[in-house]
C-alpha cells in the first residue's frame, strides 16, 4: 500500500515536471529558435567553419542547460513532496 502511494506520488511529480518543462520548451522555441533561425542560415551560407563551431557550441550548451533545468525541476518538486 505504501509503495503504491509512493509510486503514484512519483508519477505525479513526473507529470508536474513534464508540464513545467513543456512551458519552458514552448518559450524556448519562440524566443530562441525563431530568432536564431535566420542568423544561423546566414552563417551556414557564408562561413561553414564558423557554422561548425556555432553548431557544436549550441548543442553542447543546450545539452548542459537542459540537464540543469530538468535536474533543478526534479529537485524542487521532490523537496516540496518531502
Amino acid at each position, binding site marked *: 500500500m505504501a509503495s503504491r502511494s509512493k509510486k503514484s506520488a512519483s508519477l505525479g511529480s*513526473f507529470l508536474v*515536471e*513534464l508540464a513545467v*518543462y513543456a512551458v519552458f*520548451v514552448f518559450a*524556448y*522555441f519562440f524566443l530562441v*529558435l525563431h530568432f*536564431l*533561425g*535566420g542568423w*544561423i*542560415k546566414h552563417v*551556414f551560407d557564408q562561413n*561553414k*567553419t564558423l*557554422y*561548425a*563551431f*556555432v*553548431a*557544436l557550441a*549550441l*548543442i*553542447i550548451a*543546450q*545539452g*548542459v542547460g*537542459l*540537464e540543469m*533545468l*530538468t535536474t533543478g525541476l*526534479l529537485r524542487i518538486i521532490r523537496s516540496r513532496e518531502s
Partner: protein
Amino acid sequence: MDFLISGTHINPVYLIVIGFIVGICGGFFGVGGSFLAGPALFAFGVPMNFVVGTDLAHIVGKSIVAAKKHRVLGNVDIKLGLIMAAATVFGVETGAQIIQQLKRHNNVDLVVAIAFVIVLIGISSFIAWECWQTLKMGKKESTAKGKPRRDHSAIAYIAKNFQRFHLPPMISLPSSGIKQISLWTILIVSYIGGVFSGFLGGGAGYIRMPAMVYILGVPTHIAVGTDLFEVMISASYGTFTHALKGNVDILIALVMHTGAAIGAQIGATLTQYFHGVRIRLAFVPLPLLGAGLIIYSLITGHHFK
C-alpha cells in the same frame, strides 16, 4: 516549421516526440537511438546527408550529460575510452568522406538507406538470436543448478577468444577487469564503429556496445559508460566535420534534443524494472521499426510532415 538549412518543412512536435522516444531508448538501452532517429528524419523528408550529420549533432547534447553521470558512478574506463575515441575519429572521417563521394554522385539517399536497412535488420536478428540462445542456456542452468544468473550471455566465450589474440602491443585495462588485450583489437573495433557513425549517423552504439561486451569482454555497465564517454568525443568531431561539409541542420538537432532530455530520465528509471536479457529482448523490434520506416519512404516516396 521551416528548417531553412536542410530545406525541409517539419512539424516540430514530430521532432520532439521522436527525440522523446529516442531519449527513452538512450536511458533504457544505453544506446543513442540513431536506429530510430535516422529513419524517422528520413521519413520526415530530410535528405540523407543531413540525416547523418544532424543525428550526430543531436547525440552530442545527450552524451555529454550522460557521460558525466556515468563518470560519477565510476562506469567510465578513461584509458579505454581515449584509445577508442582516437580510432573512432578516423572511422568517422572515413564515413563522412564516403557520404561526400555519394553526394557528388547524387545517390546518397538510396545507398545510405539500403545500408541502413541491412544494418538494422542484421542488428535485430543478431540480438534476437543471442537472446534466444541465452534464454535456452538459462533454462538449462536453472534446471541444473537452481536459479539462473540475472545478467548473462550465451556468447561470452567470444570475448575470451579475442583476449587470447597476441599481437603486440598488449595492454591491460584494470578498470574494465581485462588483464591483457591486443591494442589492435581495440583500434579495429573502434574504427569500424566510427565508420558506421560517420556513414549512418548517431553514435553507432548498436555496433560498438555489442562489440565492447562480446569482443573486448568489457563488463556491460562499464561498456555503457565508456561508450558514452567515447561517443562524446567522436560525435563532437563528427558534428564538426559534417557541419564543415554542410551536412548538419543544427536547428533540427536542437528541437529533437529538447524531447530527448526528458525522455532520457524516463528511460533511466525504467531500467529499475527490467534486467539483462529482458532489456535486450525488448530492443529487438526497434531496429525493425526503423528499417520499416526507411523501406516505406523509399518505396512510396511519401514523407510524414
